[in-house]
């Protein structure tokens, strides 16, 4: 009987636990998490907007651990891994031996080195439930919010709080909102929507300093332009960093992230890593599949995890939905195709007969095949003229044996 | 368990007529009842009327993702256009019938041919305000008055409308601007209107339906009856056998199908001539008999008092014609109009039954076409007779007999018309009005129109009728609904037992059934005359009467034209299935709600006999309250 320990109860940790339980019905599985409740960080904004309580941002059933006979140790940080003795230490000197260990500690928010920001008690991240709780408490005292960064995290926070009547200022270093996912036009649509809901954007502008009160709380953000923006608290959404401290302290090889091989093994024997802490990807589906792949390897089924490609994300703010896949900025030597109507905007980047980037704003229903085309570098020459009307019908195939579909390419 | 060795399949549709259902299940030939199963998957777009194939861009269908056709037509336009097309086509059918009927009367006059009812002639001439030198001249004049109206352009109002219609209705129609122009022109105009990228206005198109309804009802229905009465004889109340028992295999039997009784005038008399009878005898038969089927059979049955020798009786409605033919004792089918199912063709082929068509509009694929021309009727008639005798000789003994002598009954009350009923009541509507006023008869329901099979053969018609009479509502029928109801005994005096206590008492006292059979669908016009005369006697308008109409199992486009007349008359009209309109909320609302404000009428859709009867009863009770009775 083997003992599996998983550190972290996010997308990767939970999917690993789930997979391990299927592969190893009898073995001992333990999940140790710093969080009290399993929750989806992608739904934190639903919590912050008070649309859902903590239970309803749980992405597994309430009886998940019980039903799967998995021990869940909550509210405990793992302090050290003894990779020789194959033991983890957590909390007040508790320890647990393992045969196989998975590190799925995720990533944490990053505070750039702006004076006062790293010390101020009223600067929050927006990565997990504890962050959301802190913001909620701060919001009870003051409704002027300064958000650094207009990526998905920043806008998630903004959309949640503006529904609750916040006065929001968002500073973005790039010249447009959601710079990674959008182009200028798509960005303008979202910017307008947020502005209509009371948000103010400062584009191409950063925070360079701050004014604090006697407790060290930031009361005014000083912009790179010199302008002072008064605020009650700050949300940092200017990027994340893989959480590598534990691995590093335990002598496991790290660079910017925990180093893993193609089987998601770390430098330590029988220690694996999955999810954001590996730095391989930052999106949920990839974390899930890393958790699955790591679990398979831990269970003795050699599984090669292919580096996720391409960049991909969706967003849905105020009912404006967007899908963004691949690279929209790499346009050299590429054909840029655009389709724009009153209710839709689509853009495709085609290079050497292959789709390399795709953006769709509007009704993104039934558009999953674009990710597949980019991911698998499928030749679409001859189909450029209907690039925005492609459907699975253009690649229709059926696996006669099991009735599943198959791409006919 | 399954001991039928040569049946086609046992998945036949249910029928209100259980013995017939069993008979059909066992016959070794395919009928409509067998085909229901294979056609049970309906096109939902078609059912809702939102499939448009008016142009090569189509067919376009309406879905949430595609709310307009390629041309831009929305559901309202597509539905209204399809509906008006159907009403126009249906109107064209009835107008064709009245045209031929009037021509027959005219020829009768011109050739001083046999007139069976001078009383009817004088009545009609009086109604139309026509005079003539003698009865023959009067026939010509009456016919010309009708024909000239039919042939008017649509921009000229027809002159007889005001003479035929009840004045309060005419007043309302004028207010609504729906007085019809020339009846054929109206059909023409509205067919044009519904062509590709012409009218897109659903409200205007529905108003056009009402106009077509008026010309259809007054001319196609009412006048056809009155014209036929002159040549073919007035209906007389009597009892008659109905169902397949009427078929006597010792005769050369001719099944008649269609709607134009006047086209048979010559031949039905000729068949009794001694030389023709002698030919039949020489072939081994006792003589000729006509077997009724569909509405022309109903019409012959209605006037059966004049045709006891040649007419054996009415076998049944359109959807048992295939079964009737399968009995083996029918030697020929003479058809002249619709409700002649294409499904009879393979059966006739197999059983060597001669098919002859008397009108090109209903030319069947494997039939001889010998169109009726007055001038050549004698030689054509003899040719038809000879062909039929040949068929008799070549098929008898060669094809199997599958008689169904126990089917139907012997004592169905028939011969009811506006004239014969009034006479029966002692020459006045007062006794009927008194019965209604006293509540012994709660109200009147016209259960009319077709028979259909897709949801059961006559099942809804029968269920609804039973529910209505149980509520003391007297049912008047016309059309294939009559054929279905009479075969299950609803028009025998014994059916009084099924009526509610008050109606039952009335039936027993008068010796009548609780369902009165006016005959063919054309006689919906007679029923409406009855309604008009009662309204006139009461001094009220038609929508005020405790009268409802149900075309429970409406089948054809003609029924929709009839229905449009009912709406123009301001009557509540029940339909078992919607007329392919529900894809448009607007059209549905106009038909089922807003129509009340226009004409007083409205469409009620209900596929369930019990709840439909409850709805209709509620309407009758409401009208009774308004009349304070």
């Amino acid at each position, binding site marked *: 009987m083997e003992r599996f320990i998983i550190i972290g109860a996010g997308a990767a940790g939970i999917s690993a636990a789930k997979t391990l339980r*299927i592969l190893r019905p009898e073995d001992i599985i333990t999940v140790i998490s710093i969080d009290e409740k399993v929750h*989806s*960080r*992608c*739904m934190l904004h*639903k919590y912050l907007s008070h649309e859902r309580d903590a239970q309803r*941002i*749980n*992405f*597994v*059933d309430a009886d998940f651990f019980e039903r799967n006979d998995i021990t869940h140790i909550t509210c405990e940080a793992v302090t050290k891994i003894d990779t020789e003795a194959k033991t983890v230490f957590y909390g007040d000197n508790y320890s647990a031996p393992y045969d196989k260990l998975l590190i799925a500690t995720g990533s944490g928010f990053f505070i750039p080195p702006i004076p006062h920001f790293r010390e101020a008690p009223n600067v929050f991240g927006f990565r997990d439930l504890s962050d959301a709780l802190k913001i909620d408490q701060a919001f009870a005292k003051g409704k002027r919010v300064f958000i650094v960064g207009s990526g998905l995290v920043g806008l998630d926070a903004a959309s949640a709080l503006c529904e609750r009547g916040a006065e929001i200022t968002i500073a973005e270093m790039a010249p447009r909102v959601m710079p990674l996912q959008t182009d200028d036009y798509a960005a303008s649509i979202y910017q307008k929507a947020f502005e209509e809901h009371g948000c103010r954007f400062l584009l191409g502008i950063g925070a360079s300093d701050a004014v604090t009160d006697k407790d060290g709380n930031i009361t005014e953000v000083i912009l790179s332009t010199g302008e002072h923006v008064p605020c009650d608290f700050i949300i940092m959404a200017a990027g994340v960093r893989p959480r590598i401290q534990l691995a590093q302290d335990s002598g496991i090889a790290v660079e910017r992230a925990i180093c893993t091989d193609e089987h998601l093994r770390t430098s330590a024997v029988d220690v694996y890593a999955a999810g954001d802490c590996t730095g391989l990807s930052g*999106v*949920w*589906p990839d974390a899930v*599949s890393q958790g699955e792949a790591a679990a398979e390897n831990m269970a003795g089924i050699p599984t090669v995890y292919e580096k996720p490609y391409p960049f*991909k994300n*969706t*967003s*849905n703010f105020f*009912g404006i*939905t967007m*899908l963004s*896949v691949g690279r929209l900025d790499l346009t050299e030597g590429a054909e840029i195709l655009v389709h724009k109507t009153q209710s839709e905007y689509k853009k495709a980047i085609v290079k050497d007969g292959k789709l390399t980037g795709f953006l769709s704003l509007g*009704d*993104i*229903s*039934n*558009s*999953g*095949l674009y*990710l*597949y085309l980019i991911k698998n570098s499928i030749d679409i020459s001859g189909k450029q003229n209907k690039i925005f009307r492609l*459907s*699975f*019908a*253009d690649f*229709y195939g*059926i696996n006669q044996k*099991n*009735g*599943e*579909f198959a791409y006919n390419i | 368990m399954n001991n039928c060795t040569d049946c086609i399949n046992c998945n036949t549709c249910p029928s209100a007529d259980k013995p017939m259902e069993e008979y059909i299940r066992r016959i070794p030939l395919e009928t409509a009842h067998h085909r229901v199963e294979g056609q049970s*998957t*309906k*096109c*939902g*777009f078609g*059912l*809702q009327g*939102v499939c448009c194939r008016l142009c090569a861009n189509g067919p376009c*269908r*309406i*879905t*949430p*993702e595609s709310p307009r056709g390629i041309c831009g037509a929305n*559901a309202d336009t597509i539905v209204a256009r399809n509906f008006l097309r159907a009403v126009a086509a249906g109107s064209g059918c009835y107008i064709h019938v009245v045209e031929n009927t009037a021509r027959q009367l005219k020829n009768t006059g011109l050739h001083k041919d046999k007139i069976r009812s001078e009383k009817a002639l004088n009545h009609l001439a009086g109604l139309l305000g026509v005079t003539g030198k003698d009865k023959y001249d009067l026939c010509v004049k009456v016919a010309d008055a009708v024909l000239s109206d039919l042939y008017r352009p649509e921009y000229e109002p027809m002159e007889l409308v005001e003479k035929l219609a009840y004045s309060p209705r005419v007043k309302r129609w004028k207010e609504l601007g729906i007085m019809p122009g020339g009846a054929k022109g109206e059909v023409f105009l509205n067919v044009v209107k519904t062509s590709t990228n012409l009218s897109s206005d659903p409200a205007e198109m529905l108003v056009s339906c009402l106009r077509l309804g008026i010309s259809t009802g007054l001319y196609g229905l009412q006048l056809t009856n009155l014209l036929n009465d002159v040549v073919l004889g007035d209906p007389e109340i009597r009892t008659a056998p109905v169902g397949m028992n009427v078929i006597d295999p010792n005769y050369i039997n001719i099944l008649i199908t269609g709607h134009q009784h006047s086209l048979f005038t010559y031949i039905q008399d000729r068949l009794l001539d001694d030389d023709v009878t002698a030919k039949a005898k020489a072939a081994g038969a006792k003589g000729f008999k006509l077997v009724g089927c569909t509405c022309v059979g109903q019409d012959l049955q209605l006037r059966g008092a004049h045709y006891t020798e040649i007419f054996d009786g009415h076998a049944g409605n359109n959807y048992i014609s295939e079964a009737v033919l399968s009995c083996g004792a029918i030697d020929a089918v003479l058809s002249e109009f619709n409700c002649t199912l294409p499904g009879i063709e393979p059966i006739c082929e197999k059983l060597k039954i001669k098919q002859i068509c008397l009108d090109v509009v209903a030319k069947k694929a494997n039939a001889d076409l010998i169109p009726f021309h007055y001038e050549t009727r004698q030689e054509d008639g003899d040719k038809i007779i000879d062909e039929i005798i040949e068929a008799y000789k070549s098929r008898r003994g060669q094809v199997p007999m599958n008689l169904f002598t126990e089917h139907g009954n012997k004592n169905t009350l028939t011969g009811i018309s506006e004239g014969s009923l009034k006479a029966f009541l002692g020459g006045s509507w007062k006794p009927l009005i008194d019965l209604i006023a006293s509540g012994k008869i709660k109200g009147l329901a016209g259960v009319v129109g077709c028979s259909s099979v897709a949801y059961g053969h006559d099942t809804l018609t029968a269920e609804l009728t039973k529910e209505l009479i149980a509520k003391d509502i007297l049912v008047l029928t016309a059309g294939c609904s009559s054929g279905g109801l009479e075969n299950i005994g609803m028009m025998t005096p014994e059916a009084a037992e099924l009526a509610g206590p008050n109606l039952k008492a009335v039936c027993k006292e008068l010796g009548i059934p609780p369902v009165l059979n006016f005959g063919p669908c054309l006689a919906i016009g007679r029923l409406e005359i009855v309604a008009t005369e009662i309204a006139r006697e009461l001094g009220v308008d038609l929508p005020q009467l405790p009268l409802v109409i149900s075309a429970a199992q409406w089948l054809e486009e003609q029924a929709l034209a009839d229905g449009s007349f009912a709406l123009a008359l301001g009557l509540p009209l029940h339909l078992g*299935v*919607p007329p392919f309109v*529900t894809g448009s*909320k607007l059209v549905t609302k106009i038909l089922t709600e807003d129509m009340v404000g226009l004409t007083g009428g409205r469409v009620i859709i209900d596929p369930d006999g019990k709840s439909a009867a409850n709805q209709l009863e509620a309407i009758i009770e409401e009208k009774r309250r308004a009349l304070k009775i």
Partner: protein
Amino acid sequence: MKRIFIDPAKCDGCKNCSLACMESHRQDGGTGIYTLDLLDPRNQSRNRILSDGKGGYSPVFCRHCDIPDCAGACMSGALHKNMESGLVEYDAEKCAACYMCVMSCRYGVPAISPDRKHIIKCDFCAHLEEGPACVRACPKKAIEVREV
């Protein structure tokens, strides 16, 4: 598990399956095709009959994949593969409308609900004992439920 097998060669594009799907999932409490609102976007079909561009049709029905892209991408737990039934089930209550599933289904099955708060996806007519309405509605037997 059961899966709807498709024979595209038999499909005539009549969309009876789509109407059956719409009828099966209508929310207005009504029954019967006559009252099914064909203009209400909430009634959109979960299956789609696409033209194959050659005069035929490519019916796209949810495969309830053995390894479902959609469920793997779901960050709310709304979509999950039921290991007993084999179905990819959707819990609208849990859905956070992030539409990662829409992006991830390589066959383009999930659609966005008109209120942009949920997705629309085949549930194998879980509420019908007799199984998926689409299959029963197909006059050509181009779709059938088979055990795999």
